[in-house]
Structures are given as C-alpha cells and as structure tokens.
C-alpha cells in the first residue's frame, strides 16, 4: 500500500492503542488532532486572505499585494505579525468577560464544525452518524458569538450589526438546511462517508438532474449569506456601521474574528463540495470505465481541496461582483424566493429519489 492519509492515520491509531492504555491513547489523539486543526487554521487563514486579495485585485484590474516576498506571498504573514504585536483594547463601557469571550466562541465553533469533514479517503476526525445534521446544528451556535460581541462592545454600531447578522443567519439557515436535506434524501443517509460513497458512480450534481442544480445554487447563496459575506455583508457594512459587530475589536481578538470568517468560508465550501461535488471522490461516470481508472490516479486529498477551493473562488467572485443588498431586499430574497423555491425543489428531489430517476 502506498503512502495515503488513510494508512498513516490507521498506523498511528494502532500504534497508540498498542503502546498506551486507552485513556492515555485517547488523550494523545485529542492533542494531535487539536494541533493539526490549529495548524490547518493558521495555514488556511494565510492562504485564503492572500487569495481573497489577489482575486479582488484581478477582478478590479489591480495588481494586489506584490511587495512582501515573491509576488507578495508573505503579505499575510506580515499582516499577522502586525496584528499580534498590536495592543488588544477593551473599551471602558464594555462587558469585559463577554467581550473577551466572544472571539473565542466564534473560533471554537469554526473548529468543532471541522469534525465530520472528510479531507481525503478515510481521513476524518469523527465519522458521526448524524454527519450533515451536525454541521447545521453547530453552525447555528456561531450566531451567539456574534451577538455576544455586538452586545458586549457597548456600541450602537456593534449592536445593530449583531442584530442584522443574527436575523440574517437565522433566516438563511432554513434554505441552506433544505438544500442539504435534498442531498440527504437522495443519498439516504446523514453520515458524511455514506454520502460520499453514494457518489461513487458520479457526483450528485450530475446524477440528480435540474433539481439538484437548483439546490446547489440555493445552497451557495444561503451559505454566502450565512458567512456574512458580500453581497450579504450588511452586518459589517462599512459605509453604515463602521465594521458592524467587530467595530471595537483590535489586535489579536480582531484577528480571531477575521480568521473565523475565512475558516467558515472554507468549512461551508467543503460541505458544499462534499454534498454536491462528491467530496474526495474522483470524477466518475458509471462504473468500471477506463475514464474512472485514469481519474483514480489523482490523490483524493487533491480532489477534495480542488473542489473546495473552486467553491471558495466562486464565493469570492460574488463578493467582488455584486453590490451590497439592503436589509429588506435580503429578507425578501430569503422568505419570498429562496425558501418557497427550495421547498418545492425538495418535493421534486423526493420524487426523483422515490422513482429512482437518478443514474
């Protein structure tokens, strides 16, 4: 067997349980996973922020960061150093405990969501049997961190931004959830590994005809809104609310919010890639064809990250193309368009699943 993530993790697991007693081995595994997740977060933060700045520059016919390091590659490293060195201020009127707790809540939620994600074949932190439902459940906690930050800052801009963001996340969770359910109906399981295995002979976006496309588009729109990104970024609309819920934050606490935003983008795009684009599953058509064998030579982790970064690019593309919406337009879009359409679409998907019209 070659060097794959599956073998490495299995070998480490076996070795730990053979060497130590189960409690110690479990603790060691927790530590390893914690370190890996934190490492992934810092790398993601650096890469995604640089990617955002480059993509935005290209779309606006600019050059983007190009001074620090070759082609500006170390720009985000320099920014991070600056943020670490900066003083973390706490306003006098703030509720100090909650003010300092909020960025960590947002960050911890982003970390916990990673648990059921499958990064490569057999490479997963926790193959929990409610998989996709876990994503929906935990992501609804992140709104609490934002509300806490907005409240504790004792600032009208923060409070308004937090309320907007809360209303937005609570509304858009519905249509995101419904489009996730449409894939659950087709795959017949909530477990992430089962959903990926059901795409062995083709990704759902190809197998499921038009209704899955509609679900995919609704999912992308809804998660863009849930991560508070443009064109739905009125929670931090610079022109009206300075910076929304993180107006009063500076230094490392601000950096945590900033990092959590990008990690959330990664997570929702990874979920989208898992549900609609087959996760780590290579591009397959049918079973046992020559084409499938060629595709299998590309490692599964590359497939997963390729799809995820493609979706991240699409969401960045939205941000640098569309103007920001008003709050009434935002709520109209959800309650009058996305929700009814996704409900009818769910019925269509159920029909397809019952009649077995997918390939």
């Amino acid at each position, binding site marked *: 067997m070659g060097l794959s993530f599956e073998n490495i993790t299995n070998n480490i697991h076996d070795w730990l349980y053979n060497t130590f007693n189960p409690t110690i081995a479990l603790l060691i595994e927790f530590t390893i996973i914690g370190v890996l997740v934190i490492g992934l977060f810092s790398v993601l933060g650096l890469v995604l922020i640089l990617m955002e700045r480059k993509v935005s520059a290209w779309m606006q016919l600019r050059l983007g960061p190009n001074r620090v390091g070759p082609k500006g590659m170390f720009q985000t490293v320099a920014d991070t150093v600056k943020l670490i060195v900066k003083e973390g201020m706490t306003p006098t009127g703030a509720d100090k405990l*909650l003010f300092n707790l909020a960025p960590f809540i947002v960050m911890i939620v982003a970390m916990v969501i990673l648990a059921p994600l499958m990064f490569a074949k057999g490479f997963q932190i926790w193959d929990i049997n409610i998989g996709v439902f876990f994503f929906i459940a935990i992501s609804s906690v992140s709104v609490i961190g934002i509300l806490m930050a907005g409240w504790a800052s004792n600032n009208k801009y923060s409070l308004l931004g937090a309320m907007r963001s809360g209303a937005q996340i609570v509304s858009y969770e519905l249509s995101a959830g419904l489009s996730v359910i449409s894939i659950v109906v087709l795959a017949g399981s909530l477990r992430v590994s089962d959903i990926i295995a059901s795409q062995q002979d083709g990704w759902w976006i190809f197998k499921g005809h038009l209704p899955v496309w509609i679900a995919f588009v609704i999912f992308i729109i809804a998660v863009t809104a849930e991560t508070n990104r443009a064109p739905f970024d009125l929670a931090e609309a610079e022109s009206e609310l300075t910076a929304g819920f993180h107006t009063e934050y500076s230094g490392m606490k601000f950096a945590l919010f900033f990092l959590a935003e990008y990690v959330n983008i990664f997570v929702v795009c990874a979920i989208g890639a898992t549900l609609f684009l087959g996760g780590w599953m290579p591009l397959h058509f049918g079973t046992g064809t020559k084409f499938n064998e060629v595709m299998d030579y590309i490692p599964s982790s590359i497939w997963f990250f390729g799809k995820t970064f493609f979706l991240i690019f699409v969401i960045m593309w939205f941000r640098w193309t569309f103007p920001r919406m008003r709050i009434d337009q935002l709520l109209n879009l959800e309650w009058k368009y996305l929700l009814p359409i996704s409900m009818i679409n769910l019925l269509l998907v159920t029909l397809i699943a019952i009649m077995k019209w997918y390939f």
Partner: protein
Amino acid sequence: MNASAIIFYVLSAFVLGTGILSVTTRKIFRSAIWLLFSLIGISGLYFWLEVEFIAAVQIVLYVGGIVVLIIFSIFLTQQSGKEMPKAPLTRTIASALAVVFGFVFTYLLINQNNFKAGDGKFDMSVARIGNQMLSTGENGYALPFEAVSILLLAAMVGCIVIAMKSKPEEK
C-alpha cells in the same frame, strides 16, 4: 475512575455551575449567556451518551432557536445593560427553599424507584428514529407527529396573517 466517568463529572459540573451562575448573575444578558452554556453542556452529556441525534436537536432548538430569541428580546428591552437591583432577602430564602425542596423530591423519587443502570447499548440511528416517528404500527408516533405538524402549520399561517400588510382601501 476511567476517562468516561471523568468526562461525565466535568460535563455535569459545567452544566450545574453555569446554571447556578445564570440564576444568580445580576446582568440579564449574562444570564442568557450562562443559560446557553448550560444547554450546550446538556447537549454535551447527550454526546457522551452517544445519542448524537438528540444532542444535535438540543443544540439546534435550544441554542440556535430559543436562546437566540431570548437574546433578541433582551436587545429590544430598555436599560438591559444595567445591573439589576439585588433581590430582597425573602425572595432569596424562598428560592433557596424551592431548590432544596426540588432536590429532595427528585432524590426521593430516584431512591424509591430503584432505577437500574442500562447496559448502554441501544440503537439510536437516525434511520430508526425516522421510521419510528412515521410508523403507524406498534410504538409508532405517526399520530402525534401529524398533530404537531398541524399545530406548526397553524402557527405559520397565523404568523403570515399577522405579518401581512393590509391593502390600502380603494376609493
């Protein structure tokens, strides 16, 4: 004491500690946040019991739904940032007595009925829950499920009726 027991005691201490904080703090927003942590701790207990579906439902309903609603209503109240006045002594004594009474009552109930610890092996897969929820056979929950659905539908229709703008009268 193995790791499982340690985790149980840590989670229980967390739930009880945040629960006590939530009723003793004098800032109303903090009270809501402590309640939130207490509810998250309970969902942690469900995860510990390996009933993941119930745990996730606990988070979605209580944390994502009810606590967010509570926080929103706190945002809309006046002077919600101020510290509340200290509770009068009579009220403190009354609530302490209520707590003691509740504790004794529960303790006696558990003590007299002699509950046995289960062997911890029950199948709680989502597929089984779904089938049970919609089965019309023995131990099926189809009727309550439909009754609750009708209740929710009525609530939704009511919301829409209340939120609907009345058309301006034609002249």
